[in-house]
């Protein structure tokens, strides 16, 4: 193979590795259990992972930018409670409650964005701190107990299977992922994310609105976090003050798996969606082969390290060619 061809192959692998991994994990699943061949089970898996998947779309934006958002789990918790409280068990409140919930997510995201755009702090640590603050807010708001009541029919509709097969929640995930993908691929904002993420200095010198794009990306991460919170509430139907705890790590694992690195400037939502599916299939496999639930954490930790290492390796090789 000529060096140029090898570089092309490496670039192709770096860009598409996750889809190969998804296929492999799926085939392993098929080999282990017949469940993996039934659409009913697969769509249920997608329904299951919808909250994480929706939140991951927003986090992908900030990570393309070279940032990160670890407050998204806390945002999911906060917004799930806010949504339940605003619904207050009345169907008429459904839409206003969703609007208020989205506004809450946007607000947290915007605060993250402003603090990060106007300073040089590490987004990793800053959003970790924001996660603690938002978790505290959730506890204060709810008084520490599960408050609020989901509007009647809300959970039922979300979990209905259209055509007896595809849950509404799975469709919601697909639609939001598609919207997120189109924003990333077709808008100026999407293009600017990559430009700023691959070289911030150059982007500033080129006159790109770095601060505005940064704030918008974090605000969107907050908004998608809120949508994830609503999806979580729709999935379970019960309000809980710590429902989203730890989900930020699943989100992060999925995004990194999908090829959007911590360095920024590469990856995208298509990879993230594949990463989300790999993660949930892997978790289901861990269950099916009878490993204890907590081994999921070990699997997730290993995935974060190995996926990052793999991409770092591929990137270095394409960079050298």
């Amino acid at each position, binding site marked *: 193979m000529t060096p140029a061809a090898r570089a092309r192959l490496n670039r192709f692998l770096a860009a598409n590795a996750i889809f190969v991994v998804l296929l492999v994990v799926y085939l392993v699943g098929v080999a282990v259990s017949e469940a993996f061949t039934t659409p009913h089970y697969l769509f249920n898996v997608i329904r299951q992972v919808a909250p994480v998947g929706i939140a991951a779309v927003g986090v992908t934006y900030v990570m393309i930018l070279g940032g990160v958002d670890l407050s998204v789990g806390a945002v999911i918790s906060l917004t799930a409670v806010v949504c339940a409280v605003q619904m207050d068990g009345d169907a008429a409140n459904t839409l206003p409650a969703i609007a208020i919930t989205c506004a809450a997510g946007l607000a947290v995201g915007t605060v993250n964005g402003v603090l990060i755009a*106007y300073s040089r702090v590490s987004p990793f640590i800053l959003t970790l701190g924001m996660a603690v603050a938002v978790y505290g807010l959730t506890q204060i708001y709810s008084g520490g107990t599960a408050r609020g009541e989901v509007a009647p029919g809300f959970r039922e509709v979300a979990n209905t299977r259209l055509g007896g097969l595809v849950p509404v929640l799975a469709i919601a995930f697909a639609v939001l992922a598609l919207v997120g993908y189109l924003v990333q691929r077709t808008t100026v904002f999407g293009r600017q994310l990559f430009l700023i993420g691959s070289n911030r200095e150059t982007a500033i010198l080129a006159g790109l609105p770095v601060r505005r794009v940064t704030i918008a990306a974090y605000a969107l991460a907050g908004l998608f976090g809120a949508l994830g919170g609503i999806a979580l509430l729709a999935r379970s139907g019960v309000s809980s003050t710590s429902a989203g705890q730890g989900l930020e790590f699943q989100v992060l694992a999925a995004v990194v798996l999908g090829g959007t690195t911590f360095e920024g400037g590469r990856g995208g939502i298509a990879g993230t969606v594949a990463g989300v599916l790999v993660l949930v299939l892997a978790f289901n496999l861990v269950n099916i082969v009878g490993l204890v639930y907590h081994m999921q954490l070990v699997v997730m930790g290993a995935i974060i390290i190995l996926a990052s290492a793999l991409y770092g390796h591929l990137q270095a090789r394409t960079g050298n060619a």
Partner: protein
Amino acid sequence: MAPGVTSPAIDLSRTGIWLLLGAAVLLAAAGLPEFREAGNLANVVRQSSALGLLAIGQTFVILAGLIDLSVGMAAGLVVVLACALMGGDAAATLPVALAMLALGAGIGAVNGTLANTLRVHPLILTFGMLFVLQGAIFTYTDRSVGRASEPLQTLANGDIAGIPISGLVLVAAAVAAHLVITRTRFGHHLVAVGGHAESARRSGIPVARIRFLAFVISGVFAAAGGLVLAGRLGTGYPLAGSGLELDAIVAVVLGGTALSGGRGSVVRSVAGVLVLAVASNVLNLLEVSAFVQIFVKGVIVIAAILANQPRRAGG
């Protein structure tokens, strides 16, 4: 775009933490008679000791331009294993304690080896390790197990002439660490690697070995913190270490150590831990709800990070 931040007349990254600690203690002592009681002050020190040890270890890795997010779970694993292995047996204290310190060193060695061989940012690497360790803890047990031996409990909770033993341990550890960083060849190399790894490499400093040792030291201090924590709790509580990594990093950052590496001090990190402990103690004495305390802690983290920004413009 961003105008350069003008440097203040006094170097706040060095003196800020002492001003903050002084102000916090004076305000608390002036406003709250309960705070001044000897028993309460001893409690503040006892509460600081485990986190203080973690913060000292964290300062080593941050000085080297790295970070270690696995320390909380490493300490948590030590809490569970130490109590399970001791089972309250005093004779087992020393062998188990040594084994736990070796375990900490082993975790650090794994972190260090992977950091040197894989192309993964230490933040991500140790973040992944956090989950591996958490999974290990919960796979082992999801409820409290075992019992810390009497000597270990005395170490964590006992006093000598009214001074908490764990506080003396912390002071001794801080002094030793400070001397290692400021007076030894290794310490100078550590700071050089954190300041500019490439320059350090070209000066012939074994960068990979220094980074490896920094992680090992962090792991040993995490295990030491876990032992003190085990003594305090008396039993192997699996969630004991959750979130300690963030507290340790916040303490280090409060102490003015640059997250970019190459600049900082373990003594100031311990002062950072004391500030956190005083704040938490005051909120408790004021009977502020636990929920508000969580929120306040988050705000402190954000404020500390914002106050300790990299000085160089750009980026």
